[in-house]
């Protein structure tokens, strides 16, 4: 079976066509680097994504602090992780890299701060 993918690994956005049989990649065209094949394999077995959001901040010069995940997580867990992120309340100051939730939902990925924000 032929399957079409848009590779999201880098902005080149390669449009990949893969011949797939029983979850195995038989052949692959359209990828301009090796990461394309890796991406298709990941999409076939366990598609993963990174997400960005923000958490509420008390006493900061901004009312919220941006966060992202240290590692991509399975696509079907995105909204579960969003629920966890929405529960967080922090006090300023916060700094880039600060871990807000370690190993969120046991997915081997941390929710980390992505902006330095001073206290008011």
């Amino acid at each position: 079976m032929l399957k079409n993918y848009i590779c999201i690994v880098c902005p080149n956005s390669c449009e990949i066509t893969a011949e797939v049989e029983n979850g195995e990649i038989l052949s692959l065209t359209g990828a301009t680097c090796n990461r394309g094949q890796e991406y298709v394999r990941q999409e076939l077995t366990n598609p993963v994504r990174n997400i960005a959001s923000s958490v509420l901040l008390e006493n900061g010069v901004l009312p919220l602090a941006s966060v992202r995940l240290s590692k991509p997580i399975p696509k079907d867990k995105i909204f579960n992780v969003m629920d966890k992120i929405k529960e967080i309340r922090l006090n300023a100051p916060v700094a880039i890299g600060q871990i807000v939730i370690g190993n969120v939902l046991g997915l081997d990925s941390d929710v980390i701060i992505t902006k330095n924000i001073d206290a008011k």
Partner: protein
Amino acid sequence: MEEKDVIIIGGGPAGLAAAVELYHKGIKNILVIERENTLGGILRQCIHDGFGLNRFKTTLSGPEYAQRFIDEVEKDNISYMTNTTVLSVGQDKVVTTVGRRGLKTYRAKAVVLAMGCRERTRGALGIPGERPTGVFTAGVAQAYMNLQNTMVGRNIIILGSGDIGMIMARRFTLEGATVKAVFEIQPYPSGLPRNIQQCLNDYGIPLYLSKTVTDIHGNSRLTGITVSDVDKHLNPIPGTEQDLDCDTLILSVGLIPENELSLEAGVELDSRTKGAIVDEYYQTSVDGIFAAGNVLHVHDLVDFVSMEAEKLADSVADYLHNQSLPKATISILPDTNINHTVPQKISGKNSFMLSLRVSKPLQDCVINICQNDKILKTKKITKAIPAQMIQIPIQKEILSDTGSLEVRVTC
């Protein structure tokens, strides 16, 4: 009047990269002027990841990417002023500013224009209809959500498939809103395919091509819109109207370099890029005034903005050292498949990076760079889309001192 070697207008990615590179080149009497209250420019509100793959070989969020440059600025003690607006730049490189300390005037040996760009608005599109609240540009919605913690709506439709619009579609969805659809007037998407995948397809948000918004409804708050199919001249086709309910309309319909200051300084603009006409030194038509980043031409990736500004800084250093730069007498003439090139002219004495965008999607093409009817360089393109900036490095060894450089596409 205070004297500066270089004044940089704008503390976003272009201005910061130029400042850091100038400092590393030994030019330390510089001043960055920023009108917001912190450095970083638009990156402060671009909290999604994917920045830095080219420049830093890792994927970062916008604020993290900006912080890498801000940290350098702080470490080197490069002077900058925030909450300060530049009122005017003269041909004599006199820069007038207003800020907390009142009106101040500086004289610079060189000025770097790094003001970035603005979004096209409803007014620029001329969408008819009522004028309720609930119509936002994508960047304004992004600022509300990511800087002010204000949700702009619950039931959202997006006009335009620009990258910021698609990134906001994902953001709205993650924060609990419903994004009904994205409508694009062109027959092809205007943003990067990866964003169609990871921002729309992943969340089941449909993208409709060759459709546009032709009416806006609602008295105080937006209650709905009308969309219509468009013909190949992009004119709405009567009888194809469809009414849709929504409380929010997001416009992601293009960016325009912000060049009011440049025009006042006498800088000549390119009608295609809406940015300055520059040579390979990034010098504008006014001696000693340089431009890079989105004020020069809208980029697809911030990495290229930083790298362009770093090259600009090297030229500014040369300019200060030699008091002038070689004249650019060779024009770069693209054919109709190419929307524009940057630079638009060169001296022929240096290697340079030719940046360009195609005017429509192209497949299996060859871009030939020709001079005096000789092909100097060939780049094969399997797929080219207007959303992507193409860069072709040109080496000085292959250039002649005379004869326009023609950029020709054959498919």
